[in-house]
């Protein structure tokens, strides 16, 4: 998929999911998200492997799909758009925060995400 440009309409559909309603930072209702599939681009995989050893994109994928998640939330910025921020710990014990972009921006709660980056917790 690298090198391909795609046109998306972000604003009108942003935050609208199958449960209705928009994702509102001040909403008292806690949203539910199912990360069923995480797509990892080769460039992201290489970046994480090079910059954040021993964390790997595969570790991140396994953890967000199968593992216990410490916390997660929707981050909606003008620069990056809507992203799911997930904090979790890999099987190997590396705590990280990952930024996931919904693959289908028209339906962010569909369950398919694209890994944008992951940052491991610095060793103390």
């Amino acid at each position, binding site marked *: *998929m*690298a*090198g*391909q*440009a*795609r*046109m*998306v*309409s*972000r*604003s*009108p559909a942003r935050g609208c999911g199958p449960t209705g309603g928009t*994702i*509102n*930072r001040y*909403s008292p209702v*806690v*949203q*539910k*998200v*199912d*990360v*069923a599939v995480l797509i990892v*681009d080769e*460039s*992201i995989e290489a*970046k994480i492997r090079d*910059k954040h050893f021993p964390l*790997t994109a*595969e*570790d991140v994928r*396994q*953890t*967000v*799909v*199968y*593992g*216990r*998640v410490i*916390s*997660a*939330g*929707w*981050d909606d910025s003008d620069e990056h*758009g809507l992203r*799911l*921020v*997930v*904090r979790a*710990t890999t*099987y*190997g014990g590396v705590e990280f*925060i990952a930024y996931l*972009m919904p693959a289908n921006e028209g339906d962010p709660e569909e*369950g398919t995400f694209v890994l944008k*980056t992951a*940052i*491991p*917790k*610095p060793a103390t």
Partner: protein
Amino acid sequence: MGIMSVVTDMGRNVEDEREPAWDEAVAALEAATPVVVVRSPREVTVVYRYADGIFTATSPDVRGFRTSGRSLPETRSLVRQDLSQFLDPAVKVLERFPVPDREICTSAAGCGQIKAASLPGMMVLSSSGTARTFVSSARPSLHRVRAS
């Protein structure tokens, strides 16, 4: 905003993007709209192997996972303990057991032929389904066939 925008995200050089520091990422998470991560039905596979008197369990779904034990029940117990700390409680564990490489064939009075695997700690059934026996490599002198 209501403005159509063109995102060339996939083609962007990831090196050009400034990556947030850990503290920035924590702050972003704290400021984000909280969500609960739920799981649709899914499972991880654990494969058991037996060699040289040791059972080893690995998983193609969990990188780095490897557990060993002296018996199958012990190894399964260790697997459950280990994975329960990592896996979301909603994720099921699918276990694949080793296929016996040879069979012990004998006959039991009135029960037809009994096939017993060579693996220790494995419960086997007679071909008629009426007789049970327990084969243990640790106590080879007790390889008796009990027919009910």
